[in-house]
């Protein structure tokens, strides 16, 4: 057993921290994160309020914990949604080849012309901003990413002898895709998913900062920052904590993704 790469370990620790906090917030927070206490607003950090209180006297630490849950949930749902559709399309493209493959991949190319922000803007203009808009927009941009990764990896598997053997044995394309191709391309897909998770957390934060994601009173790191921005002269500390949380989460998932890629694809290690 070779030594695990350091980025994998650091990434795993940070991800565990963020996911653990998100899970813990389901059963326990130091205070009710929605509890108002106008007289106790802008309190400095204390034993009672670990990171102090905001402009409405709400406990900042509890809000950050609940926001972690929001962030992880949005990333999880949108990456899974985009991942499942993208992987299915990639497998289909690879299995069918020819015109079907061309059409799917050209459509994926078009998807790349829409950053999540543009897609969220369109949806928000039509339906009004909501958490759902953020989730759909992030899921949508994940589809072409996963379709490309899946198709590129699957195309290699389709040239292997065991796939020829399976075809000779009369197995259909769907069965081969499911039983032989998918298990053998799981590694690059999981690596991609981890990296997409980091991107999704960044995107969710940006969308809710801009008012296109989580709506009040649901706490989210991005929205906490946009509220803090208007209070910068009064309480600059409120503009620090949510940003640190975003960086921790994004750094965790991107290091974890890099680390996983290092151990699953040894060809890349020489560059590091």
């Amino acid at each position, binding site marked *: 057993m070779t030594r695990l790469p350091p980025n994998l370990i650091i990434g795993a620790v940070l991800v565990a921290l963020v996911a653990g906090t998100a899970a813990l917030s389901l059963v326990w927070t130091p205070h009710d994160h929605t509890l108002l206490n106008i007289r106790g607003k802008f309190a400095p950090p204390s034993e009672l309020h670990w990171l102090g209180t905001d402009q409405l006297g709400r406990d900042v630490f509890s809000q950050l914990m609940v926001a972690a849950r929001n962030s992880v949930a949005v990333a999880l749902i949108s990456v899974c949604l985009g991942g499942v559709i993208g992987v299915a399309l990639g497998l289909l493209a690879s299995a069918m080849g020819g015109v079907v493959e061309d059409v799917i991949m050209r459509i994926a190319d078009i998807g790349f012309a829409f*950053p999540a922000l543009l897609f969220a803007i369109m949806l928000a203009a039509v339906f009004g901003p909501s958490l759902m808009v953020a989730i759909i927009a992030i899921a949508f941009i994940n589809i072409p990413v996963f379709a490309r990764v899946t198709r590129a990896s699957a195309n290699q598997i389709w040239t292997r002898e065991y796939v020829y053997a399976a075809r000779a044995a009369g197995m259909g394309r769907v069965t081969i895709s499911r039983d032989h191709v998918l298990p053998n391309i799981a590694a690059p897909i999981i690596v991609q998913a981890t990296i997409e998770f980091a991107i999704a957390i960044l995107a969710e934060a940006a969308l809710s900062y801009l008012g296109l994601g989580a709506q009040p009173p649901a706490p989210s790191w991005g929205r906490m920052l946009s509220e803090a921005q208007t209070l910068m002269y009064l309480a600059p500390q409120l503009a620090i904590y949510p940003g640190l949380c975003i960086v921790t989460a994004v750094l965790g998932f991107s290091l974890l993704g890099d680390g996983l890629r290092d151990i699953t694809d040894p060809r890349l290690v020489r560059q590091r």
Partner: protein
Amino acid sequence: MGYFLFRRTISFVLTLLAVSVVVFAVMNILPGDPALSILGLDATEDALAALREELGLNEPVLSRYLAWIAGAVQGDFGISQSFRVPVSELIAERLPLTVSLAISGMVVTVILAVALGVAAAANHGKAGDWGIMFLSQLGIAVPAFWLSILLVLLFAVKLRWLPPGGFPGWSEPAAAVRSLILPTVALALVQSAVLARVTRSSALEVMRLDYIRTARAMGFSRRRVLWRHVLPNALIPIVTIVGLQFAALVTGTIVIENVFYLPGLGRLIFQSIANRDLPTVQALVMLFAAIVVTANFIVDLLYLAIDPRLKARS
């Protein structure tokens, strides 16, 4: 080469068309009555009917799409519902600010990233390399809007060197430039994090090649070899990422303009969403998507200019 150019141009035009179909479809075919969402629930039936007529909502979808595209090609994006002036006028007013921000952001990004990336590669495995790579890993994780807020906290709130936001207009050039400094730095720092990594690994790749060893063996200085032989050959992946990043940078301006209250296209988009001004949102989304597609097209053309091998092959 002519064939490559031809094929690439055709696919560029087709992609633009497909993008326009997606934008139009999302904004027009999804359930909901645009007239109702613009005027609100308390609008009278007459007002709704009049607006539907004005927006051409009574026409079949296909002819509405064709009319929109025909107009857009000539720079006519219809009338803004909230400002009551042609959308093209709104765009023309705000475009210079967004373009200045994007270009200055790109220039600073490239200078910073190439300098850091080459420095890291030249010190491969040493402390400087690790330091630069650590910073760039951090830079990738920092959202541009938070970095902006931190910059404002330091340079506007604490030190009071630069304005925290707003834009005085081009009639006061010095003040205008001052108000663009923080937004440009915020955009460039985040973008250069990715580009510095690509520059480093691309330079390292080239540094291992035989002709670099030969050049060093012939007695050329490290610096000369680095800038004259390594960097030009390491440019191709760098150009690819610059092209992809230009797209990220342009959408980044949407965010940054909202952080710094700059009256550019990004701010206009958000005002239009708040005002339910669908024609303006539709035009701006199409414009931004077209910029992304065009940037990718230009990258492909640049390949031809940079890599003579591609010319020979096609």
